[in-house]
């Protein structure tokens, strides 16, 4: 008996170690840092010819720890120029942090010049820095620098110490280092130790005959596994029963929705969104799963009234199996999603191995919502109709077919507080950018899912004994 448990725990632990190591390599640099690019600014005009008479000083405040790159937008007046531009960065005490000379003849017209500062300047987050530019060019063979019109009165730069409103067209790239990536192995070991400690504790409790969540789950699974399988297969078999195309609808439905939305919205949003078909499809598939599973889970208790009043089965099995049945549909519709990704020419990377993670989070989230709504449904039948409206509002509040930045800044919280937005963004990062999302995204997804699931479970548990009286 003990041997069996030791085996189970060590197998479980080995799987964990394997996942942790694999994740380190899949995640790669995305786990350690990301580059944050400030906006270049609109090229609204060109300053006077940048000859040796002129010195430009542009104050700026980096938002990240390390300053890595600076881009400056030059024009060449479409002619051959000669000379050198010197760029320097000073801090507020006037000390020079970095300097760089660039050959004017090598500049491209209307193209940002990239100054890679190597090594980057560390510890500059929030400091007042100045970018100073000088030139030794002669009139007639010097470049020009673009500037943007001021957005507010505080935007100032200096030409030969004379302040001007606005800013020159430049951007700076900062490197944001994640603690999680830096101390990845420590985090992984700590989390692993926590899991191991929990397993041992559960094992100890079990030996003493006291229940734990783990032992409860395994007992319920052992006892009701067959029922859960039967209920899931029932839902799956009856879903497309009597339709000619059958399961093919799980393929076609998201594809057709995508096609319609693509035709309707492509002229409006296409230019601002990278890979619009994948953008649309990933949103549609995840959101459809959400509305479908929660819509089904909502009626799970009321719809099974005749069983619940006769046979004792843990009641949460009904809403949970509904969500699980819908998730089969989700898995099927991943196939068209990957197809479209490949057809549109996006390379599929190993980052895709993180897709199950976000699906699992979404599943937990939907289970939580179903538990909560199926409870309210028992006491208020209006829930069904209210949910119809609520899910419609939710559809429009989530950036499914419009770009994320279309929402005005004061309403951004609608997105930040919307777990579905995070799940969809996570999926899009994987598929469109082909990289693993930043550690924060992992945490946000897991946290929102666990929170919703726990809240739903608490509400369900509190009221479940009274269900029989109301259904």
């Amino acid at each position, binding site marked *: 008996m003990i041997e069996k448990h030791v085996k189970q725990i060590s197998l479980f632990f080995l799987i964990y170690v394997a996942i942790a190591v694999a994740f380190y390599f899949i995640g790669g640099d995305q786990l350690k840092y990301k580059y944050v690019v400030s906006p270049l600014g609109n090229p609204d005009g060109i300053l006077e010819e940048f000859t040796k008479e002129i010195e430009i000083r542009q104050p700026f405040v980096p938002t990240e720890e390390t300053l890595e790159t600076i881009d400056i937008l030059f024009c060449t007046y479409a002619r051959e120029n000669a000379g050198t531009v010197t760029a320097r960065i000073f801090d507020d005490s006037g000390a020079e942090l970095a300097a760089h000379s660039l050959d004017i003849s090598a500049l491209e017209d209307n193209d940002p010049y990239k100054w890679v500062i190597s090594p980057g300047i560390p510890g500059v987050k929030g400091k007042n820095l100045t970018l100073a530019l000088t030139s030794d060019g002669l009139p007639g063979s010097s470049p020009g620098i673009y500037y943007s019109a001021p957005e507010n009165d505080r935007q100032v730069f200096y030409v030969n110490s004379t302040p001007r409103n606005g800013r020159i067209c430049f951007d700076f790239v900062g490197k944001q280092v994640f603690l999680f990536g830096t101390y990845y192995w420590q985090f992984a070991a700590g989390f692993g130790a926590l899991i191991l400690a929990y397993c041992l504790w559960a094992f100890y409790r079990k030996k003493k005959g006291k229940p734990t969540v783990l032992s409860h789950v395994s007992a319920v699974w052992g006892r009701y596994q067959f029922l859960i399988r039967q209920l899931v297969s029932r839902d799956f*078999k*009856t879903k497309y029963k009597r339709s000619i195309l059958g399961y093919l609808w799980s393929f076609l439905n998201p594809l057709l929705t995508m096609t319609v939305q693509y035709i309707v919205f492509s002229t409006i949003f296409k230019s601002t969104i990278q890979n619009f078909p994948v953008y649309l499809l990933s949103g549609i598939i995840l959101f459809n799963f959400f509305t479908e599973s929660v819509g089904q889970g909502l009626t799970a208790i009321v719809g099974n009234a*005749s069983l*619940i009043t006769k*046979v004792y089965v843990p009641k949460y099995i009904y809403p949970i199996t509904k969500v699980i049945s819908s998730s089969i549909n989700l898995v099927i519709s991943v196939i068209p999603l990957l197809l479209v990704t490949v057809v549109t020419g996006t390379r599929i990377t190993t980052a895709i191995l993180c897709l199950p993670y976000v699906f699992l989070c979404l599943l937990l989230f939907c289970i939580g919502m179903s538990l909560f709504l199926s409870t309210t449904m028992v006491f*208020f039948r209006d829930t069904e109709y209210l949910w119809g409206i609520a899910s419609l509002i939710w559809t429009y509040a989530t950036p499914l077919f419009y770009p994320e930045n279309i929402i005005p800044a004061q309403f951004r919280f609608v997105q930040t507080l919307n777990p579905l937005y995070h799940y969809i963004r996570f999926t899009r990062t994987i598929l469109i950018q082909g990289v693993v999302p930043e550690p924060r995204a992992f945490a946000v997804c897991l946290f929102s899912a666990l929170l919703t699931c726990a809240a739903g479970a608490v509400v369900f548990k509190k009221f479940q004994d009274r269900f*029989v009286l109301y259904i």
Partner: protein
Amino acid sequence: MENVMIDIDRVTMRFRMANDKIESLKETFIAMLSGRLKYEEFTVFEDISFDVKKGEVVGIVGKNGAGKSTLLKIISGVLKPTKGVVRTYGNIVPMLELGSGFDPELTGHENIFLNGAILGYSKEFLAEKYEEILEFSELNEFIHMPIRNYSSGMMMRLAFSVATVVCPEILIVDEILAVGDEGFQTKSKTRMLDLMGGGTTVLFVSHSLEQIEEMCDRVVWIDEHKIRMIGTSQEVCEEYRKFWS
């Protein structure tokens, strides 16, 4: 206390009933505003105790609304009593109402497994007993047809066959003995008698005193939140008849 299968120990059941069945948000809101949202305590049982021994067939009688079905629900674990405990020893199989636990879109075959799973049977057990169920239900080739095409008699035969295929330790029957045609009725009665003879404990609710007299060893008469009488079926049925005449 040897071989006790069901032990009902000082059970009290009270419902907190809203004075109307208020189901929607709007109705609650209006009721709250107009101050009508009062709850009434409604007592079904007050402190009742009895036990059922292994192999006994116990009938429960009482007038409509006396709480016979509620008692069955408490015993099968669906309802939690307000006070007191019910201890049961062994697996409980309730005979489901016509068609509940069946999915009309699935075939009879699939429904046997679905319904069996709901009743708590294992997969291996059902696979093993499948032929027996099929034979008993007399459905033959119809078994591979979606049951939405079944007649109610066919459906009931299937339900009865699934529920009684196992020798459940405790069988709960809520007025469903008249199943199918004359032939099947005789057959199902025989099966019931077999089960009872085979050591299954049966709890049986019916309005038909003849059935109760015929099948039960003991009868519990529930009236006015209490057990009015408990005893052999002859005694109780006699008193019960007197009460109504």
